[in-house]
């Protein structure tokens, strides 16, 4: 290709080329350099509790079946028949003993092993079925119930990969005595945007709220976000934004979920439930993290998390200009069913395909792709320099910390992105 990766991201990542967002050769390198080499989010253990349970997932554009084997272990296999390649699983989720391929009815166990070849009895030399199972994702690990897979056999452990991000994730996960669970099938929304923009947005772009969402987010709420807001990068590509509430903040102003619609419309029962969680927070996550009121998080390369509008999201690329954006409502696992049903609206009212905020985000993400796909402007890369060099270590929190207007989260993301692509560049 005519481009080299070095030309797309400058030394301090304060200038980012339009081609990063729109070029198909760059996208091919992203597949190998990033999606072939990273830990990618597959699903949550609450979705596959019983032997035989399965859900669909994707690793970039590759379809995956994530399942609980009859032995109780977790399996991830590529959803493609070893005979002619058809997907052998068509349901979003379910429970089964066998996946049967429609074309010639080869059947696979829920662990991905090839069990039967109907035509086998008619031929003399029998195929070796042990070599013909579904292709297994070579590395699968989970942390706090979150299951990840990697195509890179030699990748570092998931624990090390998440690194200090676990400190911030635990500010959420550890708040709940029984952990969290995912509700239902993900909403799968196709948006004409590049996969990196939803990621960048949730990784640290808090300040667009006051602008893009000013019709919905009250100015005072946004000012408070900016005043108390912190942006953190633990490892390039991983980041968290949150408000750190002052000591002695009233419980209703700090408790998780209290500011979202579930609590607002759900009345006393929901509010008391949320106060109860917050009452234990100090003991469970310590004083500092009990005062954290999260905004958005990102895990490299394409997993995002929303704190109040509680949701996990994955940005699955479908080419440079298309993304299949998956999102799940997440609730405390031990909440009564009626409370879970109310809390899921924290997500669905404001985010996801019907979300009153995300309909604004998705529109600008699509517009950004249009702008990135134009000609005659390659000498005008995007400006990513806000707050350059202003991030600093913090005495009490891991990572580099700054104000939310500092775009260092995006510069770090693109520095890692550049390294990952350069590592495979020239080997197309």
């Amino acid at each position, binding site marked *: 290709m005519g481009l080299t990766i070095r030309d797309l991201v400058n030394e301090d990542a304060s200038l980012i080329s339009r081609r990063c967002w729109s070029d198909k050769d760059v996208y091919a390198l992203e597949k190998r350099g990033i999606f072939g080499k990273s830990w990618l989010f597959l699903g949550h253990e609450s979705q596959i509790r019983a032997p035989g349970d399965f859900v669909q997932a994707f690793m970039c554009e590759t379809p995956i079946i994530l399942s609980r084997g009859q032995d109780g272990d977790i399996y991830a296999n590529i959803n493609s028949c070893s005979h002619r390649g058809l997907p052998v699983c068509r*349901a*979003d989720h379910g*429970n089964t003993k066998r996946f049967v391929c429609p074309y010639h009815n080869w059947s696979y166990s829920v662990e991905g092993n090839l069990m039967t070849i109907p035509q086998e009895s008619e031929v003399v030399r029998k195929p070796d079925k042990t070599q013909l199972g579904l292709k297994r994702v070579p590395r699968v690990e989970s942390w706090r119930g979150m299951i990840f897979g990697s195509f890179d056999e030699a990748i570092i452990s998931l624990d090390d990969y998440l690194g200090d991000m676990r400190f911030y994730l635990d500010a959420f996960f550890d708040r709940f005595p029984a952990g969290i669970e995912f509700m*239902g*099938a993900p909403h799968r929304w196709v948006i004409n945007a590049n996969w990196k923009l939803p990621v960048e947005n949730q990784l640290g772009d808090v300040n667009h709220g006051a602008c893009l969402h000013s019709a919905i987010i009250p100015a005072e709420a946004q000012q408070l976000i900016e005043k108390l807001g912190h942006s953190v990068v633990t490892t390039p590509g991983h980041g968290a934004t949150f408000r750190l509430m002052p000591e002695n903040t009233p419980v209703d102003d700090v408790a998780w979920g209290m500011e979202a619609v579930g609590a607002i419309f759900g009345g006393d029962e929901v509010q008391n439930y949320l106060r109860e969680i917050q009452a234990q927070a100090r003991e469970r996550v310590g004083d500092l993290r009990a005062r954290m009121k999260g905004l958005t998080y990102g895990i490299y390369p394409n997993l995002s998390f929303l704190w109040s509008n509680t949701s996990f999201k994955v940005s699955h690329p479908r080419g440079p200009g298309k993304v299949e954006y998956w999102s799940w409502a997440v609730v405390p696992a031990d909440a009564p*069913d009626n409370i879970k*049903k109310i809390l899921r609206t924290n997500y669905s*009212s404001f985010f996801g395909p019907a979300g009153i905020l995300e309909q604004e985000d*998705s529109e600008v993400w699509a517009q950004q792709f249009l702008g990135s796909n134009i000609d005659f402007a390659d000498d005008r890369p995007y400006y990513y320099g806000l707050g350059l060099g202003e991030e600093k270590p913090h005495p009490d929190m891991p990572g580099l910390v700054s104000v939310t207007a500092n775009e260092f989260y995006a510069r770090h993301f693109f520095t890692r992105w550049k390294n990952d692509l350069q590592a495979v560049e020239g080997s197309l």
Partner: protein
Amino acid sequence: MSTLSVEVSPEQQRQLERFYFHEARLLDNRQYLQWLTLLSEDVRYIIPSRVNVQVNNRARGQEDMISIEHELEGEDSMGCPHREEGYMLLMLRAERAYKINSWSENPPARTRRIVGNIELMAQGSDTLSVLSNFHLYYARPGSDNILYSGQRRDTLLSQTDGFCIVRREVVLDYAAIELPTLGLFF
């Protein structure tokens, strides 16, 4: 149980049509504040999400095997519907349309909907269960032109001056959500 609708007089059918055609015209004319007046204050507005389900082997040979009800994660499910809204959220959406900083509606979408197959399915003392289908054409600068298709399952309250909507469940006919937003009024 009969799958037929309730037998209605031409006048009664005409009343329902008049209500739904008026509603469609208000929405296509972007008169959302007037549309709000067609809603009961305790309205429930639901859009179930639609999933690809595993077929139940034991139901084979029966119509129930592929009933669309199995595909819906609605209000009572432990999945996640797209929308579960009351009057306040609907009002928030309606009022948002008239703010100059509602960027994603600037310029606003051009919509045209055809509502048909209006069937009265049950009638109580003052409530009616009504089904209707719609096709909604949607065009917005910067976006693809889109056709939304779906069914509305309404509970209407009859009043002296017509009807008001107490409950609406919208069953959307999508496979993947290749639609710019599910945040419209259907």
